[in-house]
């Protein structure tokens, strides 16, 4: 899909009024929170498990070029063809050539964020007129509706059953029903026809295993198994950070992924693919391609601090822990990476100017960081993005913050360095605010602070702490004097 994070405010305003959606998503967050903690709690040593997944991803990122070369060498030995794409355009072009080469007319897909990132579906449909079918039910629904996925694991999680049913009625001729089983069954039958006819399967990659030259794909529905077993050609697209050192590392990441994502110890299907079909196989691709995609990641890699953004395993747990995401939903983020996952990667891939609101509209609560299985330090990262924006970091397309903003903070800083100026400013602000105050609460904030008063009052105490303390000191001094005085003469002083 075409990224448009610049539309954050506009879309957020449309989404924020959907109170029921926010209430529902908050419940979803609570449910995912419960399921995932219960699942992680089932591990023999949860704390150790997290240390391990952090270490595995740190190793992988720190040793990235070596691991990628090892993966490529072994994958090629296994009979896969490994192709490298510098950017989205090149990736699309490579895939277009493969589609043409193999004369593919029908393509089925496994859910792949990378394919969304490079806007593959639209491109292939427009350029070549191929039919592409998302095999994952949620992904199929949003494909039909033309909307971005709402959540990495539940693309249609924000739709009610009526909307889902109507979408299927409108697009693939289902007879209207609100029975979930019947709906799933209709899609099952529909997709089987496509799986049967498919000439090519396109998937992402969950983990690429360097030591064995294998790729691992996890799923619950079965559409990935279909897309890699039925068609004659399999194209797997991976962003370059997906590689891990060996099978044990991969399986551990897989476990942390499924436990953190949906609260499952293991997904229904795991496909460990190490090459085109073996001798004697009727199923499986005859030609298997893995495309390694850069698209801005080698640039992120240059910065040792920002590099941690590449540790992400796309579990999506951060989203279900983020009060902002649960409240505004996926659409304001304007891309295929919603929630904190998007806040981590979008500014670095799309630039800090366009994604300004994505990293600014965050309370830095740290909910995301507290549940991340790979130890990404979101709070520090987002602080960093804000500082990069203020400074006008050209590497990541940031225009320096405005003169007014910088001047504003400079005068604020001056007041913070001078107690006299500080007290004066506090006094001025209090007078300013008292204009609209009633019984210890300001109910009408002036000027730029109006936004606060739209929804709430502001408590304002009678005295500043400085004043309170000064009075306390004076009282205690005069008490001491009175005590000293009464010791001497016992005379009453009024």
């Amino acid at each position: 899909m075409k990224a448009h994070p610049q539309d954050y405010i506009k879309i957020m305003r449309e989404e924020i009024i959907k109170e029921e959606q926010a209430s529902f998503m908050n419940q979803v967050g609570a449910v995912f929170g419960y399921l995932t903690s219960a699942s992680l709690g089932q591990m023999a040593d949860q704390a150790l498990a997290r240390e391990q997944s952090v270490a595995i991803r740190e190793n992988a990122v720190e040793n990235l070029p070596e691991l990628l070369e090892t993966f490529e060498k072994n994958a090629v030995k296994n009979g896969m063809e490994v192709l490298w794409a510098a950017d989205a355009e090149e990736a699309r072009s490579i895939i277009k050539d493969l589609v043409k080469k193999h004369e593919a007319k029908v393509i089925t897909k496994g859910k792949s964020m990378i394919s969304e990132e490079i806007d593959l579906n639209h491109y292939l449909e427009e350029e070549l007129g191929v039919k592409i079918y998302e095999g994952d039910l949620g992904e199929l629904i949003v494909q039909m509706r033309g909307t971005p996925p709402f959540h990495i694991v539940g693309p249609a999680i924000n739709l009610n059953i009526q909307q889902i049913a109507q979408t299927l009625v409108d697009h693939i001729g289902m007879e209207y029903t609100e029975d979930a089983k019947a709906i799933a069954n209709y899609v099952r039958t529909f997709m089987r026809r496509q799986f049967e006819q498919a000439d090519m399967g396109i998937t992402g990659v969950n983990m690429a295993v360097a030591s064995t030259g294998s790729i691992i794909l996890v799923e619950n529905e079965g559409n990935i198994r279909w897309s890699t077993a039925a068609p004659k050609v399999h194209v797997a697209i991976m962003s370059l950070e997906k590689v891990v050192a060996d099978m044990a590392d991969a399986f551990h990441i897989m476990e942390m992924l499924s436990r953190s994502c949906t609260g499952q110890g293991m997904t229904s299907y795991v496909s460990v693919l190490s090459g085109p079909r073996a001798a004697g196989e009727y199923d499986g691709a005859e030609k298997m391609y893995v495309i390694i995609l850069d698209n801005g990641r080698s640039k992120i890699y240059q910065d040792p601090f920002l590099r941690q953004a590449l540790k992400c395993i796309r579990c999506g747990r951060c989203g279900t822990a983020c009060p902002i995401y649960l409240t505004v939903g996926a659409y304001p983020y304007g891309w295929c990476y919603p929630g904190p996952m998007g806040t981590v990667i979008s500014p670095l891939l799309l630039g800090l100017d366009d994604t300004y609101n994505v990293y600014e509209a965050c309370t830095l609560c740290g909910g995301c960081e507290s549940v991340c299985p790979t130890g990404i330090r979101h709070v520090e990262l987002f602080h960093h993005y804000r500082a990069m924006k203020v400074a006008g970091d050209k590497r990541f397309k940031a225009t320096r913050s405005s003169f007014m903003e910088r001047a504003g903070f400079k005068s604020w800083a001056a007041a913070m360095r001078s107690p006299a100026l500080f007290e004066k400013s506090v006094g001025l602000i209090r007078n300013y605010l008292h204009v609209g105050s009633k019984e210890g609460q300001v109910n009408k904030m002036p000027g730029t602070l109006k936004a606060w008063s739209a929804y709430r009052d502001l408590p304002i105490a009678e005295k500043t702490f400085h004043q309170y303390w000064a009075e306390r000191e004076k009282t205690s001094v005069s008490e001491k004097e009175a005590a000293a005085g009464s010791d001497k003469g016992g005379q009453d002083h009024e």
Partner: protein
Amino acid sequence: MQRISLFIPCAVDALLGDVGADTVRLLSSLGFELIYHAEQTCCGQPAISAGHVDLVRDIAKRFIEIFEDDEIIVSPSGSCVNTVKNDYPRLLSDEPEWHLRALNLGEKVYEISQFLVDQAGIEDVHASFTGKIAYHKSCHLLRALGIDLQPQKLLSHVKGAEIVPLNAAEQCCGFGGQFAIKYPQVSHALVRQKTQNFLQTGAEVLIVSDPGCLLNIGGYLHRNHPHLKARHLVSFLAQNLEGGVSI
């Protein structure tokens, strides 16, 4: 008894002076001698959150100079303590001498519940309150400082107080500093959600540990549910001391 140096956040000084006063009351009632460096202003957190980190360097150094000779520094704000303990050393990491001074200072700075329970070994401040209360877990306190049990221990010893569990107690209230002004609708939705969870508890008082949460939730309750109150932990304890409230 040790002398405690008070670190009073700018928001408390300017708007919530009573929270500062309650900090004094509570610590005095427990026999602590208090110092207050009147020349303190702000820890600089707003500028850090906004990305204007260069401006904070001098503010941080000034803060360090003001407090570094104190034995113990206590504050009624987890977010401000986090700024001093965790952000200062990072911001000054390229100046080794200041970095060390920041680290050393950080070792002596405590959020008040952390100080009382972990350092002073006090869980019972001899307060009483008849009624239901709920506890909101302020974000910086919980996640940046790892302080969770300490406030709850203090509350559990308040005679007569019934602590009702709060759904999603750890979820952000939506203050986020400038966030509340820049993204008011989103901030509102968050504080509304927090309030809905609070309403479900049937408690009359919501205890919070951060001034930001207090401004946000307190202001929202006053506007929309005036019979319900948000109280800072120290205010709740100080105002309900069994010996009565002294100056």
